[in-house]
């Protein structure tokens, strides 16, 4: 280091060593703060990957084995598409969504409750960097788990890849949306049981009732209409379109709705972070 205010003085071994007696120039944290926080968040779930990656992959496989076995010969949702092949993309997307949500929400609430959030609140990390790092880590976990579920289940009924770009677009945008929702849930919750309530009474029903296991076309008109109010329905539907080029709604409409939901959720999360809501008292 050099510059005004840094005094060089030799230590006992005679080596010059910089000390900060005056106001030395400081490195601009800038993107380094974001990159470090992202790396920390990714390493956090990776260190316990048995629980954060392997366990949800196993859950996905169990769903496939049970529902696929029971329903394979009884249900055909799309013409020419077997039930197991139909189910695989739904399970993959459900895993992406649930794990993206779990990552940002559980990391944040753990840090809040144990108090170690202070380590990221003291440094010069901006609201935007904080937001992007948590969401990017959530996307990473969601996509890694989704890829894991896909890699294990694809052998049961290899699906087609009719529009692969849509697969990627919905996987990432869905993970992003749920990562933001997880961030909001983590900010708002003060205790683990509040977060668990959010997870069990909002996220779980919304993903289960979004058409993971069925096509909403098979539902009575009332429940079809209700399903169309669920943003997760568009995520699953658009994601599945990438495999079969068949869907209940147009993928463009689905994308527009997902992006609108993500933008709205991001605005809420950024505003909470900027105000320091429940984080900087």
């Amino acid at each position: 280091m050099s510059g005004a205010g840094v005094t060089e003085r030799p230590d006992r071994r005679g080596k010059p060593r910089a000390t900060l007696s005056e106001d030395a120039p400081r490195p601009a944290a800038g993107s380094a703060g974001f990159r470090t926080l992202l790396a920390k968040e990714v390493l956090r779930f990776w260190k316990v990957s048995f629980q954060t990656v392997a366990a949800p992959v196993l859950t996905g496989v169990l769903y496939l084995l049970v529902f696929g076995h029971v329903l394979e010969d009884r249900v055909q949702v799309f013409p020419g598409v077997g039930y197991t092949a139909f189910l695989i993309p739904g399970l993959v997307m459900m895993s992406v969504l649930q794990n993206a949500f779990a990552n940002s929400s559980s990391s944040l609430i753990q840090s809040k409750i144990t108090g170690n959030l202070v380590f990221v609140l003291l440094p010069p990390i901006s609201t935007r960097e904080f937001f992007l790092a948590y969401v990017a880590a959530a996307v990473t976990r969601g996509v890694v788990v989704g890829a894991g579920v896909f890699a294990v289940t694809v052998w049961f009924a290899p699906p087609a890849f009719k529009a692969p770009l849509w697969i990627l677009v919905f996987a990432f945008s869905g993970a992003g949306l749920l990562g933001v929702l997880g961030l909001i849930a983590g900010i708002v919750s003060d205790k683990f049981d509040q977060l668990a309530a959010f997870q069990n009474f909002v996220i779980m029903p919304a993903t289960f009732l979004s058409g993971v296991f069925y096509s909403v076309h098979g539902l009575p008109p009332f429940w079809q209409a209700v399903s169309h109010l669920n943003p997760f329905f568009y995520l699953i539907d658009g994601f599945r379109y990438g495999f079969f080029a068949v869907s209940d709604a147009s993928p463009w409409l689905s994308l527009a709705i997902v992006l609108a939901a993500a933008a709205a959720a991001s605005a809420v999360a950024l505003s909470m972070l900027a105000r320091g809501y429940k984080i900087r008292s």
Partner: protein
Amino acid sequence: MPATAAIEVSELVKRYPGVVALDGVSLRVEQGEFFGLLGPNGAGKTTLISIVAGLSRATSGRAAVMGHDVVADYRAARSRIGVVPQELVFDPFFTVRETLQFQSGYFGLRENDGWIDEVMAHLDLTAKADANMRTLSGGMKRRVLVAQALVHRPPVIILDEPTAGVDVELRQGLWAFIRRLNREGHTIVLTTHYLEEAQQLCARIGMLKSGRLIALDRTQALLQRLADVQVTLRLRGELPATLRAQASEQGDGRVTLRVASAAEVEGVLAACREAGAAIEEVEVGHADLEDVFMQLMASDREGAGA
């Protein structure tokens, strides 16, 4: 024009629903000072530190670190301050070295291993560098907290009760290291419940009570506010009426009298003898910071300091 203050707060107010944690505190800590912030629990010490560190937001008033406003210019302010929090917090996912590397990265220092090694060596953490944080003892976790506050070599270092629950050896080692940092030019702000430590270490002291600064002075000047010498006696018989005004009961049958100088001790003893009170035990000492603290905390707000 005076040099930029290490920390400057003016008219700082912090209200929580139903509580006024800070009630208009103004304070300037100069660069290179070793400053003590004292006060009973709930006086507002941690609130004040939290606002300066950007962990909490003031209801009104402003705070600056090295001339940088902690809200408007938070990046500059936060990069110049290191805080050792009071709570023994840690991230159970990581090792000591990972913890310090991440902390460096948050401050924009990507290649900081030389300094990290040096800080670990000074805090006797080298042997534990690759140990998971969960496995460390309380004292070791405290050292990591100190190391985390220093990774970015902040010119201003705040230690909030750093020696709570720490054994004597670590306490001595920690103070030797902090003193060295102070000699090298770092400004140190310390809160502690151990008034003896504050008296030994801090050249200047501010005392908070109920969110107000009730004293702010050099440590020596604060000590001189109380009569210099105190005589503690155990008597067989009554304390003479002439001495009662300057006496306080110790609760163990002894009384303590404050006198202006050592020369007056003789007069006190003579008065007792003349009144027929036999002296069974005598102890002569100086007022310490604890006496000053107790007196200031007991007195009303009129004592607001220089």
